[in-house]
């Protein structure tokens, strides 16, 4: 059964690694729903958060193939309910619409969004949340015509009490020391 999975990849910071990772998906004709890359809490270690829609079996195989990559330290996969995750969305509307009634103001209040910038011409609104939430806000605001809209890739943390990567790196270092 297909559903949404979050694949987390920890890697060294090497040029071209993003391509090497995405090739694993392209080759199997699997679409990446969203992708976020940033440095992790551990200096020099980069974290990829990839959202895919496929079967668990396929996800396991993808994770195995990604881990084969020489520059990848470790890859995990989780279901949505195993992680705390957010996406951020920005919406631009014409400022005029805000003056016409208090509707937009109410929408912003009720949805927990906030205004980032107001100019004479436009207003930029920001909301973080799950895709359904940022999408719902888009639909509401779009009554007043959203002139620009952007949603980020997902950022996600596990519900584990410990950071699995630090444990992993400790184990890896001990293992490598044995090789000396």
């Amino acid at each position, binding site marked *: 059964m297909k559903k949404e999975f979050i694949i987390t990849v920890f890697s060294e910071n090497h040029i071209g690694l993003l*391509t090497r990772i995405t090739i694993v998906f392209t080759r199997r004709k699997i679409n990446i729903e969203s992708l976020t890359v940033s440095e992790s809490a551990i200096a020099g270690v980069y974290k990829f958060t990839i959202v895919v829609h496929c079967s668990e079996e396929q996800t396991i195989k993808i994770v*195995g*193939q990604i881990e084969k990559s*020489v520059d990848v330290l470790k890859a995990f996969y989780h279901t949505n309910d195993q992680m705390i995750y957010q996406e951020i969305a920005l919406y631009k509307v014409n400022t005029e619409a805000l003056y016409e009634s208090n509707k937009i103001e109410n929408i912003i209040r009720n949805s927990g969004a906030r205004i980032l910038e107001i100019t004479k011409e436009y207003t930029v609104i920001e909301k973080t949340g799950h895709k359904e939430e940022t999408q719902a806000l888009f639909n509401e605001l779009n009554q007043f015509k959203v002139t620009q809209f952007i949603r980020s890739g997902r950022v996600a943390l596990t519900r584990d009490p410990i950071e699995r990567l630090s444990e992993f790196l400790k184990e890896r270092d001990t293992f490598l020391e044995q090789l000396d």
Partner: protein
Amino acid sequence: MTARKITGSEAVILSLLEEGVDTIFGYPGGAIMPIYDALYDYDQKVKHILTRHEQGAVHAAEGYAKVTGRAGVCFATSGPGATNLITGIADAMIDSVPLVCITGQVTSPLLGTDAFQESDVVGISMPVTKWNFQITAPEEIPRAIAQAFYISQSGRPGPVLLDITKDAQFGEFDFNYKKCRKIRSYVPETPVDPHKVAEAAKIINEAKRPLIFCGQGVIISNAEEEFKALAEKAGIPVAWTLLGLSAFPSEHPLNVGMLGMHGNYGPNLLTNEADVIIAVGMRFDDRVTGKVSAYAKNAKIIHLEIDPAEINKIIKADVAVLGDAKKSLKLLVENIQENSHDKWVKRFKECDKVENEKVIDKDLFPTKPGLTMGEVVRIVSEKTNHEAILVTDVGQQQMIASRYFKFKHSKSNVTSGGLGTMGFGLPASMGAQIGAPGRAVVAVIGDGGFQMTLQELGTIWQNKLPIKIIILNNNFLGMVRQWQQLFFEKRYSFTELHNPDFIAIGKGFGIEGHKVEKRDGLESGIQKMLDHDGPYLLEVVIEKEDNVFPMVPAGASVSDIILEP
């Protein structure tokens, strides 16, 4: 080692020497000229084989790697030189062949400007390399080369590519070489888990109809002795994959033959009766398994494998023993009881009888006038005392040679398995001969594949490589024709070849040879070839519609193997 200032190009050569490289296969060109210039001063220390095409260089490097177990090295220039390597790199990737490919690249300020002979080689080769890296400064060279050798040869081996810009080749720096022994993000092999071995041993000890599969992993990890000990101690029959061929002696009483589409009758049929399958260093390719949902349904699968991504990829393992085959086999042999399965082994012998009657006798000792591929292979194997290195191309001749050639020594079979690269045979035989200079190398090639890379006859002649080349000529792209006959109502769409005079071509390259068309000239012709001092080209005209059987039709279960059309 004390540092001294040298160019990046000289550093490339010195680094290769540090890694014990004795042979480089390559082809020069603009962007790699500084490295070739540095090589000029080291021609006494390292041999360079100038091929006639970069594809020839990379297949030769594969042949070298397969017979030596060490990484094959090849050089090519940027752009077309590098892209010509790609087929061989893809071949090495799917067949786990260690290669270090070094390509020249345009000078770094020109990267991304569509400069002359610029192509994005790192990008192009990424899906088909184990690792690749672009070097833009001379200081990066020693470390990158050390990593390249470590990565390509450790764990599950594979090809790596280093793309070196011309300015990095010219630049000077303090050279200092240190071999690479570890990389934080890369663990080439997992230590063997004794609990898993014990679990596997228990299953093996209780097995009634166990069967061992010998994959290339046995050869790569030099585990031939441990593997044989497992089979002999537990008395279990051994079947092999195409790439596992030569790891286990052909004449061993427990050798029951080849797995897969054109493998032997017994191991295919009885895969579905076995109660335990011990798969060592193999990946359950679709040509081995046939229809996966009807594969080995009665068997518990024990999978000994170095690559974690292969576990459960195609066939679910009941027990997976991760790690190097030599280490896991050694431990497994200690854990199993002595046993025998004579009745079960006899089942294979009964299958052999059926296969002999229906297929093998006709292939090896034909009574009809047309020459068969099988009889040629049989005679060559006998006359070389089953001690030659066999190099095959791809197609019918490959399947027939793999079925009928016999082996006493490991690392003696060189073929393109996973990728099925036509044109592989002739260049690969050069690398095999250079890697094993004292041994007889026989290249069995079809008329189609030969014409894909025949320019390498020039390399063979120039380097006086005493390869015995046999063209099995049926004037067809035989395997495709066979499929057209069986599955496309004999619609022979573009498979017939009007061939040139191969012997004249050989002579043009300075290579002796002759053509055999009738059975009475076959034995003496083969003898003449083998006795010849130097390279020799023997063309044997084969029955046009000679087919390879048995066959597991595509998509069928292995137990639905057919013995005749």
